[in-house]
């Protein structure tokens, strides 16, 4: 199996930039520390040589940036990990960007770290972290090095990876994987098995932390409205900040509903939440309900597929039956 390294990507991108096939590259730019990698647009091989990184923190999903990037002149190269490629397809389905202006390179992925996950493992004085074979090595300021199994310490979205298959690309680097079952609905099922009261307490604790910073919405590749209803004074639900425990519930229910059937479960919402609210559990609930009641559906698996909430079957179950199934 060909291993995809920073050098592989760099060579590929440099060649495409040199040939004029693409004029820009959407890639990860190194930061101050190991974990603060920033999505960036590179315009030359030199820039990339200097700042491009590809390591365990190259987790950001670039798909949504394509809306902005394809509006510009020239073609843009984008690297798509499996989960990014689902968002890519979903955005295409919704006519959100011009496919002709993108050169997509698929890259395999076996799980990416993110800042909050690693920081949780070393809360005080995290210097850097890297992967060493099957291990994650964390260097700290005060407590020396920590060596932990890599796979077991991945963030939730990667531990419960839905697919290792890149579903859209012009060129695949490395070997493409398959759709996998990693029990991503287990946690939803656990919540469903709780009593109404317990579920309420759980979500009350989680959602009450929301500060309405909108990071979940702004990073979400399914949230691409010209103007979000929550920003639109005419919508009747516009609000800038939490004012009452109702508001954040309203915000998250509506947001989850709006992306229901369109959410590709990329997990960016939970990754970016500064309050560590497990927002993916809301979206996954919808996906789980859709799969159980209307047949398996994976948004973005196929370009042009019809999302379940803008579709129906005459023999669909009644709301009461769906409720019964979701409350064990």
């Amino acid at each position, binding site marked *: 199996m060909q291993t995809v390294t920073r050098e592989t990507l760099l060579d590929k991108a440099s060649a495409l930039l040199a040939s004029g096939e693409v004029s820009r590259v959407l890639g990860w730019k190194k930061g101050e520390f190991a974990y603060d990698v920033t999505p960036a647009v590179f315009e030359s091989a030199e820039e990339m040589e200097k700042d491009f990184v590809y390591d365990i923190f190259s987790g950001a999903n670039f798909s949504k940036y394509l809306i902005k990037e394809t509006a510009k002149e020239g073609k843009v190269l984008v690297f798509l990990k499996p989960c990014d490629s689902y968002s890519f397809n979903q955005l295409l389905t919704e006519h959100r960007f011009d496919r002709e202006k993108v050169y997509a390179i698929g890259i395999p992925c076996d799980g990416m770290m993110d800042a909050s996950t690693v920081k949780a493992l070393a809360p005080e004085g995290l210097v850097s972290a890297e992967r060493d074979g099957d291990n994650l090595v964390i260097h700290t300021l005060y407590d020396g090095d920590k060596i932990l199994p890599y796979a077991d310490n991945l963030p939730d979205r990667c531990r419960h990876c839905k697919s290792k298959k890149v579903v859209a690309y012009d060129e695949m680097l490395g070997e493409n994987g398959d759709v996998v079952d990693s029990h991503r609905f287990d946690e939803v099922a656990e919540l469903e098995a709780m009593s109404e009261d317990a579920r309420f307490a759980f979500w009350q604790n989680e959602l009450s932390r929301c500060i309405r910073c909108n990071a979940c919405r702004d990073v979400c590749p399914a949230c691409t409205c010209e103007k979000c209803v929550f920003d639109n004074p005419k919508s009747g639900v516009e609000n800038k900040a939490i004012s009452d425990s109702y508001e954040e519930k309203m915000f998250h229910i*509506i947001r989850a509903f709006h992306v229901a059937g369109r959410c590709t479960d990329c997990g960016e919402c939970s990754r970016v939440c500064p309050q560590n609210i497990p927002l993916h559990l809301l979206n996954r609930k919808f996906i789980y309900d859709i799969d159980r009641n209307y047949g398996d559906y994976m948004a973005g698996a196929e370009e042009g597929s019809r999302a379940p909430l803008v579709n129906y079957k005459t023999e669909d179950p009644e709301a009461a039956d769906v409720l019964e199934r979701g409350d064990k």
Partner: protein
Amino acid sequence: MQVNESNIVANEEFRPKIVAFCCNWCSYAGADLAGNNRLAYPADIKIIRVPCSCRVNPMFILRAFQRGADGVILCGCHPGDCHYTSGNYYTRRRMAMLFSMLNYLGIEKERTRVEWVSAAEGAKFAATMQDFAEKVKALGPNKRLEDLRCKQ
């Protein structure tokens, strides 16, 4: 004297606020038929006319709870009978998803309901409303999706 006493009791009794969204062609007509036939149901239920059950946005339902509703029921034509062919099929999916989500967040599932009532089912309309109002009343006031600012 006795009248006054019973009045006080009645005032203290919890009276739920219930919003019923009814599609114009079937359920609203069914409600009218219940009226024609003088089939009583609790006055706690107030009907909002919409052209089709598929007009009902989840935001309306959350809004109702925010503003103090204790229960929301959505009525439409029977599946297959939608005046607009398919509206209620979309409704069925949307509301199944929404209500399932509300319940997932711990909101009592008896507070929400979807019911198909045809223009000919005045009796069913009245019976459904009676039953829904009783269930909501038994649950007591909506605390889990309330907006304290809207409480008087």
